[in-house]
């Protein structure tokens, strides 16, 4: 067996992670911070971890990694329970142990030839984009514009943005405080009447910005996106319309999370026809042209 054939070996860690904190936010949202140093060391934006929520629920739940601090070994997740698994996870308190399998998957890998990244995320699709913004904040090769949507209050402090962003409606006046601190401009959308948010969907904000850019700028733009399927489809449609590449992080039900069961497939359009790709290890990030062709 040659080295290339072994490159994947040992890339995912299984850790009994100690809960550092569990914060609850309006709209049944939670931010869980755990100590999982091996996962923290290797996590990249768009990668995820497969967590055991409770010993009585052995099937794991996949959650995107929102922050990973290689220095203190912490990993952070933002989630919204849908059913009994994540609802149990939400009852974990500091010092409890949670089994964390991660990091898993190919995350975002922005192309330096397109230095302007338009990040579009909604709801629990925010974590990978948040992680990307934090990772690239000091990377001179890239500039980011982050557009976030939510139907419940954002689980982060927001503030009035200092500068306006060309093309965006004045109603989108607020930005995320952390992102401002990292000098990453952001704008928000919500149909829930949240203060400082554009009243509509986040792809509408993206369209407003894209349509104000010149052809020269568009040639330097790439989109990254994560969120509900309807949002991803709308974002893919924008990417096709404005002829910019888009990388989309998708979700599918999972069993193993490591490529073993072929349970988490998504149909991908390739030149040779449809290929069933595994979201866990072939994704979770796929090219919009292959996922939702024009």
């Amino acid at each position: 067996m040659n080295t290339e054939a072994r490159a994947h070996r040992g890339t995912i860690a299984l850790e009994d992670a100690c809960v550092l904190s569990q914060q609850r936010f309006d709209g049944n949202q939670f931010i869980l911070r755990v100590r999982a140093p091996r996962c923290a060391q290797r996590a990249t934006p768009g990668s995820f971890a497969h967590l055991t929520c409770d010993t009585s629920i052995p099937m794991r739940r996949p959650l995107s990694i929102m922050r990973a601090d290689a220095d203190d070994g912490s990993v952070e997740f933002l989630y919204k329970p849908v059913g009994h698994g994540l609802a149990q996870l939400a009852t974990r308190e500091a010092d409890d142990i949670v089994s964390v399998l991660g990091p898993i998957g190919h995350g975002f890998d922005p192309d330096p030839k397109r230095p302007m990244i338009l990040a579009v995320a909604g709801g629990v699709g925010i974590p990978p984009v948040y992680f990307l913004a934090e990772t690239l904040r000091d990377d001179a090769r890239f500039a980011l514009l982050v557009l976030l949507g939510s139907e419940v209050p954002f689980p982060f402090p927001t503030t009035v943005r200092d500068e306006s962003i060309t093309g965006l409606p004045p109603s989108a006046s607020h930005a995320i405080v952390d992102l401002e601190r990292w000098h990453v401009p952001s704008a928000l959308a919500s149909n829930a009447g949240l203060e400082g948010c554009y009243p509509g969907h986040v792809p509408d904000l993206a369209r407003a910005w894209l349509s104000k850019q010149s052809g020269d700028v568009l040639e330097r733009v790439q989109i990254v996106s994560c969120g509900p399927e309807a949002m991803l489809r709308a974002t893919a449609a924008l990417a096709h319309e404005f002829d910019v590449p888009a990388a989309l992080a998708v979700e599918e039900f999972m069993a193993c999370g490591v490529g073993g069961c072929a349970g988490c497939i998504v149909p991908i359009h390739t030149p040779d026809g449809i290929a069933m790709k595994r979201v866990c290890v072939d994704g979770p990030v796929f090219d919009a042209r292959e996922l939702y062709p024009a």
Partner: protein
Amino acid sequence: MNDPLATTFCGLNFSSPVVLLSGCVGFGEEYTRVEGFSNADAGAVVLKGTYLEARPGNPPHRVWESPSGMLNAIGLQNPGAATVIRDILPRLDFDETRFFANVCGSTIEEYAAVTARFDDSPIDAMEINISCPNVDHGGVEFGNDPGVSAKVVAACRKATSKPIIAKLSPNQTDIATNARACIEAGADALAVINTVMGMAIDITTRRPVLGNNRGGLSGPAIRPIALLKVHQVYQEAGPLGIPIIGQGGICSAHDAIEFLLAGASAIGLGTALFYDPLVVTKVNAGIRDYLREHGTESVGDLIGTVELR
């Protein structure tokens, strides 16, 4: 002193009675992504079900959690036997463990053709999958009829001199009769059991959750069913010296030992890996402890030793 876990199965040396089950570990290298996991800890690894030609498998959703288990409807997605042999087998480390193919077909001829392909490959043995509940032709449709099961096994027998293992379905009235038919047709071993057919409905959309409407139930939910089937099949196979890979919901050394006592010579781990990717070493350690505590020299001494009332 010999390793108490070491055993032979159809003449093949196993480092442990643990077998990693088809469809749960992809084509053999997937779980090695997990730090601390090694195929060398398993006696054998069974690759994903393989047809002559590539198959895309079923549309999503393919997996769904159920009480004490899960449903799957993968639909035997595979790249076809030629690709498995050309592109995948060379990437496997046959020094670490034994690799078994899982042979599928829509016709008896296809089963035989796939077997013939793997006969001419480094594969150590072949499991004949006459028990998949997730495909329209072949699979459980063949496996529920002892006559057809025997024909499939006989056709595969002609195509190889490597060990063949008939994988039996629990979705039939009399599994022991089927086991006998497969043994008479030339099976060297039996795998008992494949998944139990099941279904789940999304009451909001009023549609089945799984893309294929129905699926196969695995995990602890089926363990008592599997244990009894192994015991029933052992009544036929044991006296003939035909070994059984017992499987269905085994998650711990305790569960594994139950299956050995019921008559299994090796035990399979599938769904348990999804719960704990490092379960194999724990099961090995637990069996070792049990043997030591009971003064038993080797795993072989446990097989079929349940004392019925």
